[in-house]
């Protein structure tokens, strides 16, 4: 059977990244480069207490001793860490008040363009949003409603000011500053991010969401998210991100830490759509992220769901430490790469407590000249009796120049563990396409259908509003790569 690829391929490659605009707001950017003074300056600008500055400096000094790791299956052009500005604040006006109600209207427009109107529409969809642009949290909605229930949802700088005890107790408790190269860098220069605290026994009534956007040129975004779910609580948290189209690469090195206490449950969903670079592989965001949750309490549950369609290079392993007995962790991922994108993503499941269970479902889709890798670790420690893991990673190849790779690691130190791993790699079968064609479905629609069906298992795990967006993203990212 002969496919007719060319017309469609052209269409896709011309498909524009629709979030690629920049916003003309006055932004305060500090000098490029990184040294101890910059770290002090960031801390000073944010009016941080002494202990946080110490934390940053320790991280910075440790970072200086490290070299950029090379183990990932990625080709990363050398990054000049001195050519990046580590702090950009779009809310900073030369004069004028800084109250949240007087946010620059340009900024609000930006978020409107992104489909994130901070006020009205979200009121309808019942979602609380913290919007982070460049380095600073711009606005958090629904704060009062949440406050009534005792839920804290604010930017991390605000949390440092208003809830220093909580931040001090949990910051760095899951991802220490010595964790890895990018974690050390982030710990030194992190600018903003979200902080969530769900008190005992509270079920968060709405989805919490953060929207990240890199706007200014030559800046890196280093946000830090900290979520603490106390006993018997529940929260579902969403994260979305976009960046303007620029020829040069932008660096994004974030940390997400999650602490889940007794019987609490956290659902963390990401739709990552940073600018992936153009069809020639020029530009795009380098997305080097450390995400980790600790299921600290008994019967706790943590679930990661990610849809990765953007970024020129993705290096991301949302992980779970299952330290509480009977805790459960899930990881659902769809990673799509097209053109010259590279992704090395997966998860780590560290079983420490008894009767812990983890599930990994990873679906990779590669097209164009992209490379897509799954890398995962399942470790069952000596004391983790009756641990159970099931991993499945499937790869779908569209085109003969792309690559799909799987690198699972299993370290089993306990005889009662049951660990299973399965992986398959294939392309869309001609039989499936033929069947659809026969029923009058054009090839490109058929591919869309099949890909969506293939990713369904993961998409189903997303909250509804996100699932729709993710589904659209998926078809946009892959359009025309049939052939």
């Amino acid at each position, binding site marked *: 059977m002969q496919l007719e690829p060319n017309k469609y391929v052209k269409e896709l490659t011309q498909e524009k990244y629709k979030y690629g605009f920049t916003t003309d707001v006055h932004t305060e950017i500090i000098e490029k480069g990184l040294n101890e003074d910059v770290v002090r300056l960031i801390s000073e600008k944010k009016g941080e207490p002494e202990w946080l500055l110490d934390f940053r400096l320790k991280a910075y000094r440790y970072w200086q001793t490290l070299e950029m790791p090379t183990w990932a299956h990625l080709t990363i052009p050398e990054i000049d860490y001195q050519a990046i500005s580590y702090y950009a604040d779009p809310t900073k006006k030369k004069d004028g008040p800084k109250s949240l109600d007087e946010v620059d209207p340009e900024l609000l427009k930006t978020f409107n363009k992104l489909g994130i109107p901070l006020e009205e529409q979200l009121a309808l969809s019942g979602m609380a949003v913290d919007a982070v642009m460049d380095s600073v949290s711009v606005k958090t909605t629904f704060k009062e409603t949440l406050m009534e229930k005792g839920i804290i949802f604010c930017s991390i700088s605000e949390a440092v000011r208003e809830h220093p005890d909580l931040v001090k107790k949990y910051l760095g408790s899951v991802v220490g500053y010595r964790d890895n190269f990018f974690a050390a860098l982030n710990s030194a220069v992190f600018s903003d991010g979200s902080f969530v605290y769900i008190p005992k026994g509270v079920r968060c009534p709405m989805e919490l969401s953060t929207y990240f956007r890199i706007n200014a040129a030559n800046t890196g975004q280093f946000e830090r998210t900290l979520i603490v779910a106390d006993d018997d609580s529940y929260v579902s948290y969403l994260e979305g991100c976009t960046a303007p189209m620029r020829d040069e690469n932008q660096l994004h090195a974030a940390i997400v830490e999650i602490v889940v206490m007794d019987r609490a449950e956290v659902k963390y969903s990401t739709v990552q759509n940073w600018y992936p670079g153009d069809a020639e592989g020029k530009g795009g965001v380098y997305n080097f992220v450390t995400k980790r949750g600790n299921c600290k309490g008994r019967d706790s549950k943590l679930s990661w769901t990610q849809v990765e369609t953007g970024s020129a290079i993705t290096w991301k392993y949302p992980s779970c430490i299952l330290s509480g007995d009977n805790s459960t962790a899930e990881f659902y991922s769809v990673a799509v790469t097209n053109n010259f994108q590279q992704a090395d993503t997966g998860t780590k499941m560290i079983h420490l407590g008894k009767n812990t269970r983890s599930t990994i479902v990873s679906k990779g889709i590669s097209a164009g000249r992209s490379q897509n890798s799954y890398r995962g670790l399942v470790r069952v420690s000596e004391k983790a009796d009756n641990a159970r893991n099931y991993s499945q990673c499937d790869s779908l190849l569209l085109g003969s120049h792309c690559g799909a*790779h*799987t690198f*699972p690691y299993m370290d*089993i130190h306990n*005889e009662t*563990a049951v*660990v*299973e791993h399965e*992986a398959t790699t294939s392309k869309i079968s001609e039989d499936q396409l033929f069947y659809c064609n026969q029923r009058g479905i054009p090839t490109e629609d058929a591919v869309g259908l099949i890909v969506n069906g293939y990713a369904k298992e993961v998409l189903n795990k997303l909250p509804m509003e996100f699932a729709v967006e993710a589904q659209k993203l998926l078809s946009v990212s892959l359009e025309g790569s049939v052939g």
Partner: protein
Amino acid sequence: MNMKAEQQYIDLFTQCEALICRHSAEGLNAPRAKAFADFERLGFPTRKQEKYKYTEIGTFFAPDFGLNLNRLEFPVNPYEVFKCDVPNMSTSLYFVINDSFDKHDHPSAQLPEGVLFGSLRELAMQYPDLIKKYYGKLADTSKDGLTAFNTMFAQDGVLMYVPKNVVMEKPIQLVNILRADVNTLSNRRLLIILEEGAQAKLLVCDHAMDNVNFLSTQVTEIFVGENAYFDLYELEETHNSTVRFSQLFVEQQAGSNVLLNGMTLHNGTTRNTTEVQLVGRGAEINLCGMAIADKNEQVDNHTTIDHRVPDCTSNELFKYVLDDQAVGAFAGKVLVREGAQHTSSQQTNRNICATREARMYTQPQLEIYADDVKCSHGATVGQLDENALFYMQQRGIPLKEARLLLMFAFVNEVIDYIRMDALKDRLHRLVEKRFRGELNKCQGCAICK
């Protein structure tokens, strides 16, 4: 880099290079200087290297070992100490003692016209062109410190050459005997060449005779010509103070079919590296292995299958049973290069950990750069099925016996890959004995009979 372990060998080589060369052959001496330079640069692999993540190599070389550089003959008659002829299977039987080919007469050996099988050193002198063409061509010393080490010190070994279209009905059995009164390091070398359309089977057994520490490195290079068939069975039955580092390189031409089956029954520390390159269309590789380990035995298999051209097939199956404090590691990489369409590749690794202290590390990897392929891999770590155990107990089979039966059935799948019935039967028995603990250590195989 901690050069402590390396330094004594660098010194030794510098002092004894002339001696090593004198007791070897021209073809084997040729790559020595480069290997030495590579070893100086690389040293022994460390756990920081992904490939050697689970076995620290250097520490095993740190103690003082004796090397038989002068090629002194050991006063041993293999026929007297070794009675392990596989019953009902007539093989051409040969021996390697430590790392020297045993030159005694071999009454059972009858080889077809043109087939060469014998001391690598002697045949290298007789057929220098053959050695020049093949020796060291697959085992790249510049990439791996262990390969470089072996190439530096290897003085003798075995050459097997099967000419075009020669079919060997009778399998060859090669027995590696480790025999020494002091701790000994031996560097074995195998070069196997099958020309177009040739067919052969080789069974290699490792045995340790004495209760001293043995450390052996082994580099095997196998060239399989178009439409040739080759089976290699490696059986390790040594003891707890034996360390084996084996590196096996295979290159397969179009339409060739190779079966590699490595079985570790008794050992101390074993690390087997296997690298298969499929360079001709329609080549097929069946790579399997099995390990039964207890006490503090350690088995680490690292395999790479490189699909370079379209239409090749690879099947991989590895099974481990780990008891006591045994440690097992398996890493299997399947690489499908760009353009290697219609590749079919399957990889399976299944493991049973029988105790709390036993550890298993598994790492099945796929690296795929072509789209029209069918690749899958699967790995499991678990225990015996409780329902099956319960069922058997209900039927009056004692728990211990039921466990044995299930473990036996578990590894049988690997044995069933064997394409020699007599060997298959014998291995069924050996494995059963192994599980029953009757074969604590290979006693020169006198009891096997």
